[in-house]
């Protein structure tokens, strides 16, 4: 078997050195009733690389890739072009096949990249500090809620109606287990400011999203002011990191904690994961953050170097008193993010964001002209919500037959909310003018 270096001779010789008769000796503690006679039943035996590759290729071919044709799905994950060099970098053996940098003398590569990542994320969000990644945006959001309760010593969290419902659900799950009360406002295309009306002295934080899951941009500054006035924190969420090239940052809006999904920068769609959660906050809350942090220091020769730091927050030191149970995070996606961000730079990011925004404007214009379509979003980055005269489910199914993947129906996001005719559609730099034309034409045909 190609991945197993021991030969039969090796095994025999090693058993001899050990003084064991067979490997069965090592399993002596296994209860007799749990000892299998042979390989697990009902499963095939080993297969060659070609066979496995063919099997996987066949399964892959059953999926319609975003780049196979016009594609407008967003809602928390975005189709962006990733430079080929990013994938080369993350496939370097030294990055791909290494562990969390617990031994800094032989992990400066990962550590320096992490330090650069933290700096980039802080600059991108306008926040003071960032950690070295979370699993994804949704779990970052949940951790932010819990952290806000820890910081404020309060026990209620209020979430906007524009917060991505998966984020809201994830947050509710974690909060409920921790005994935190969760208030979720009704879904609304443009309702983030409602948060301001829902703060009282028991509220630990309000959580708003911009652009929200419908694509609407909101300046959350006033929400933050209302929260702060009541001793609550403002937590802001974004799912489209590229938007930060153009839109008002969490820092500028006065966020205490800002979290988001970093997938848009360097990470492929990948059917939902792995992604990379971004977690930032004000410096004063640094020691309450979940996850890994990389810090600058010097080595015994006085040379600059980097280490994982403030680990007294973490489970391996603090155990049940830790700020979170997170251990393995999203290292390689972090690297992809930072490498792509380095290629972009401020200049490239702003440019990229502009192209995204223009594509969305074109999409809104094109669809808006289709009879039976009403564009609902008025302030947006690269994603819009629109209402049609027919149920979105049927519309999308018809579009699919015309090879147009037209977006996400709100009824999938918020079932039972009575928003059955609304579709959320995103347009990135990958969408061409002819894709947009094709969409509008198909929609006209379907409606």
């Amino acid at each position, binding site marked *: 078997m190609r*991945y197993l270096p021991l030969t039969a001779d090796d095994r025999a010789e090693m058993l001899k050195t050990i003084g*064991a008769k067979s*490997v069965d000796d*090592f*399993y002596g503690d296994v209860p007799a009733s749990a000892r299998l006679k042979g390989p*697990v039943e009902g499963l095939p035996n080993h*297969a060659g690389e070609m066979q496995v*590759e063919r099997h996987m290729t066949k399964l*892959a071919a059953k999926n*319609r*890739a975003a780049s196979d044709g016009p594609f407008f*799905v967003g809602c*928390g994950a975005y189709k962006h072009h990733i*430079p080929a*060099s990013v994938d080369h970098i*993350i496939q370097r053996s*030294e*990055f791909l096949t*290494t562990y969390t940098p617990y031994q800094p*003398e032989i*992990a400066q*590569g*990962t550590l320096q990249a992490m*330090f*650069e990542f933290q*700096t980039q994320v*802080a600059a991108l969000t306008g926040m003071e500090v960032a950690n070295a*990644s979370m*699993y994804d945006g949704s779990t970052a959001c949940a951790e932010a809620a819990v952290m806000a309760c820890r910081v404020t010593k309060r026990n209620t969290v209020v979430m906007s109606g524009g917060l991505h419902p*998966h984020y809201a*659900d994830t947050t*509710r799950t974690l909060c409920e287990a921790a005994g935190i009360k969760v208030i979720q406002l009704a879904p609304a295309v443009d309702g983030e400011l409602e948060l301001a009306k829902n703060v009282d002295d028991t509220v630990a934080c309000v959580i708003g999203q911009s652009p929200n899951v419908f694509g609407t*941009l909101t300046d959350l500054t006033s929400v933050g002011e209302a929260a702060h006035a009541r001793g609550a924190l403002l937590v802001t969420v974004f799912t489209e990191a590229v938007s930060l090239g153009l*839109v008002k940052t969490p820092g*500028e809006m006065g966020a205490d904690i800002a979290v988001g999904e970093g997938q848009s920068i360097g990470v492929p*769609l*990948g*059917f*939902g994961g792995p992604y990379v959660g971004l977690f930032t906050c004000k410096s004063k809350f640094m020691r309450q953050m979940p996850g890994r942090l990389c810090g*600058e220091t*010097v*080595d*015994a020769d006085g040379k600059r*170097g980097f280490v994982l*730091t403030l680990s007294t927050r973490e*489970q*391996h030191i603090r155990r*049940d008193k830790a700020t979170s*149970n997170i*251990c*393995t995070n999203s290292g390689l996606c972090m690297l992809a993010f930072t490498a792509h*961000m*380095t*290629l972009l730079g401020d200049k490239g990011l*702003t440019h990229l964001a502009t192209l995204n925004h*223009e594509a969305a*404007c074109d999409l809104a214009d094109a669809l808006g002209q289709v009879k039976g379509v009403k564009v609902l979003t008025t302030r947006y980055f690269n994603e819009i919500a629109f209402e049609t005269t027919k149920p979105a489910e049927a519309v999308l*199914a018809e579009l699919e037959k015309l090879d147009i*993947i037209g977006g996400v129906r709100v009824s999938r996001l918020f079932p*039972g909310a009575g928003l059955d005719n609304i579709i959320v559609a995103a347009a990135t730099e990958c969408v061409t003018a002819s894709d947009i034309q094709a969409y509008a034409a198909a929609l006209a045909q379907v409606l």
Partner: protein
Amino acid sequence: MTMNSTGRPTSLSSIDGEATAATTSGSKGLLQAEGLIFEIGSTDKTGVDLAKPKGTKSRLGGVTRGAGTGLPGLTEPEAMRHYVRLSQRNYAIDLGLFPLGSCTMKHNPRLNEKVARLSGFADVHPMQPQSTVQGALEVIEELADWLMKLTNMPAVAMTPKAGAHGELCGMLAIRAALFARGEGEKRKRVLVPVSAHGTNPATAAQCGFIIDEINAAPDGRVDLADLKSKLVDPSDIAGIMLTNPNTCGLFERDIKDIADLIHAAGGYFYCDGANFNAIVGRVRPGDLGVDAMHINLHKTFSTPHGGGGPGSGPTVLSDKLAPYAPVPFITKTADGLRLVEHHDEAPASFGRMCAFHGQMGMFTRALAYILSHGADGLKQVAEDAVLNANYVLARLKPVMSPAFEGYCMHEALFSDGFLKDTGVETIDIAKGLIDEGYHPMTMYFPLVVHGAMLIEPTETESKAELDRFCAALASIARRAVQKDPSLKTAPHLAPARRLDETRAARSPRLRWTPETSTLKAAE
């Protein structure tokens, strides 16, 4: 001795010891000096060429960014060099044995990287119509089927994003089951061995449980007497979190009794499956009375650790816990596979753990790994992993101090007993290994062994590599006994010397700022 303008000697010959010789460039042979992107890049530069914007009037509604990010860009040649240079300061499995106990650093087959990048997997959106992602759903189903059969468990939750997230999944299911029984508020106590990984108590605490620690017996297993004493009044018992094989690298031989005891007490048995590699294909946790167990795909099933993730932690569940599994999950319908994404379709579910459907990129890799090995190969994986660990144990027994008597499972645990009175500590042994070309073993974990050194070679090491490693470690052990002072300052041959962690924690610098850059790059 001539000096250059920064006061460093200009001549290699004028200094003793070549490794410490200063060069003008700061590089040393192939080891390239490299600054931070903030020092070498500029906001003027970018490594991407994009289409010209049309100049559309903004519809941002005034919600615009005030100041630029100030982030530097690098052109592609500069960026490539930056990361390639950095990479060469890392150790990696592809360079050598990576004996981090509990981490299962095994070879990462490149086939898996290839299939994960097929556009039908990598370029598929989690929210596109389900009819267009049937192949992706089949991957999840096929992997789930393997995991259930390998564990002999009836259900598996596929969304957890790492081991700790899998623990959360299992403990939330237990919590939900207790509430369903009407005992949620009452049963809050979770038993956790002292030897447990930090994520276990942290997870239990995150779910509102109270941790009750159980001691280790002198043989490194759970102290059954202590356990029983904790169950005298079982009324508040929620369950136990037990790692098996445990973090001492030993099989919990009383595991079925423990399962029975905890069940009899009205609790559930969460098994930490991080060490599944030792038994995969040979022992099925479902045969041991387990109610929930996460599987680290990034350990047993070889998805790359990537310098700290991403991982994936599918969690198998017993019949008792299966109804409470998180959404989304897959069901089979006449039209093919379908995702159940919402609570209303699965009212018993404890809810959602993350956006979308789990770590698909890890599923494709793990499935390719599993299919490559097959049932026979996976059994061999476990056996070779255990054989390798026992070989290391046997080879090092004469010069180091095994923590316990007898055989081990997939990892060999030593205490710092042999370092007594030498002044040399576990950390020095670890750092000494770096000079010998190895990543250190896990140190000071598990907590139940003094100065613990936990060595997990995995099955993907050849005998020759093990021999070389054992010889190197034995030589370090001998040097320690001889009180070789150079160990206290090791490593000497790595890209960096020992780093000042205290300083890092005392006044944390977590990001670059123009001021900090006066402290310049390694030269």
